[in-house]
């Protein structure tokens, strides 16, 4: 355990990593549900998408807090800032996406689909920035 802690001091706390990865999975689920609703008009996919997105926002919110705390405690300031910024952008657009999802029936489309794509890309990029930084000890 001590060895692990030593190696990961400047990397993600495992819980932090789980939060980001979990949020990404939910955002991806929301996107896939949006795609399915767009193609099928079956309303349940619209409901699924709304809840997946809401769940992703809650988890990403905690990840964002952790990312901000990390900003003050890391030696890798530039990479951590980029990570936090990507996560913040994903959260803000995800929140707007959630408001769009609150529209009724097909009024969510195509805006929600476009926003969901962007949110997944941003959250994915945040995870990549963080993990790549972690594996190589901060040197990309």
């Amino acid at each position, binding site marked *: 355990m001590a060895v692990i802690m030593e190696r990961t001091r400047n990397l993600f706390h495992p819980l932090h990593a789980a939060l980001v990865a979990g949020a990404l999975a939910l955002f991806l689920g929301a996107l896939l549900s949006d795609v399915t609703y767009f193609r099928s008009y*079956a309303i349940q996919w619209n409901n699924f998408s709304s809840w997946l997105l809401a769940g992703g926002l809650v988890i990403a919110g905690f990840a964002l807090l952790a990312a901000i705390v990390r900003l003050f405690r890391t030696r890798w300031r530039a990479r951590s800032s980029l990570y936090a910024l990507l996560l913040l952008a994903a959260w803000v657009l995800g929140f707007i996406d959630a408001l769009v999802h*609150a529209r009724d*029936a*097909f009024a969510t489309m195509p805006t929600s689909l476009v926003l969901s794509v962007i949110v997944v890309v941003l959250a994915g990029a945040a995870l990549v920035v963080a993990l790549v930084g972690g594996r190589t000890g901060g040197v990309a």
Partner: protein
Amino acid sequence: MKRLELLAGAALAVVLGGCGASPSPEQYGANPELPAQQRGLLPDMVIAKPAAWGDRLPTVPAGYSIKAIATGLGIPRQTLVLPNGDILVAEGRGGNAAKLKPKDVIAGYIKAKGTSPVKGGNRLTLLRDADGDGNYELKTVFAKDLNAPYGLALIGDTLYVADQDALLKFHYSVGQTQADGPPVKVTDLPSAINHHWTKALAASADGRFLYVGIGSNSNITERGMTAEVDRARIWQIDPQTGMHRAYATGLRNPTALAIQPGTGTLWAVVNERDELGPNLVPDYLTSVREGGFYGWPWSYWGQHVDPRVRPQNPAMVATAIAPDYSLGSHVAALGVAFSSPAMGAQFADGVFVGEHGSWNRPDPVGYEVVFVPFRDGKPTGKPMDFVTGFRGEDGLTRGRPVGVTVDPRGALIVADDLSNTIWRVTPNTPVVTEPAPAGSSGAAPATSSGN
């Protein structure tokens, strides 16, 4: 953290950008102005802030008086004046729609702030003014253990009550103050989900049929089309057998029905869809054409396509007929009653409409009882204020009108489901009217809650 706040602030600004106040166009009559559809990131919402009446009263025209004849009720919705002048009040709160989206949870919480916290009575209360002095000294429970009763109609000696899930009947003899026993079910009514749960009721002039208004199960199909089977329509029911057929369809939420004296035509007030902007879609008053399709969900006001509904249905849109008379968007008409000469010359020919009031609009509308004048049997001109002051200049809301009923002796009965009051409006000088000519047919006379 600063950056976060800044961005959150920016996001909020974007969000609120959708909520500008907009001038309301003249949206009354047969050809209302229909602006372009709009929807910001948040729907425009202004929810009523309830307050007590205190010493205040609703405002009525000069030469009329208003009085609370019953208070402390359990969400009064529709009323029926019985042949001896007794008034029946249907009290209740229905609906059991599941919350399907995060939006439903949040919007449900917000909208509940604008309604009464009182529990629905699920009963019929009888009010009696035995000596005709305008004080209804008797207030007694006529029937209880009902399930969100709403529409009321009397045909001969049978009282029909439309619960949110079934059409029921009681035997009624004039003077009775309590039902003989539990009701008998005439037929089930569509009640799965029951997003729009009210079941409006009217009896045909000859007493041969009952008409039941059944609202849609969603704003605009967001619960899926399978939830809309047998919804957004008016049923014609044979009270003898319980058999029904769709009399007219595509009426999103027909909240009150009335039979036009003389012609026997069925009229309805219908609440239209939300979230297309403050000035869409107008709620309306219309004569109901047998077999007519009025657009919901695919189109509104005739053939204006609603793009939120998929798959679209151009074939049905092509058959959609426009209603007769726009009452204005979001006024939430929940009551309609044909007037009589006993209401005074100015308000003799036309209908009274109870408007519960808007939520989906930056400038609130409705929250009043209007009079729509008729000429040659058709609505004409602008609605006139009849009972106002439910929403005060101070922005507080003291009452919300629902059902309206004309007492043939010369009074308008208004149910108010926010202050849980029944109001009675009378001309100060009783109007002397010629007795109505006797009915030409020998059929039992029928009265109903919207009549």
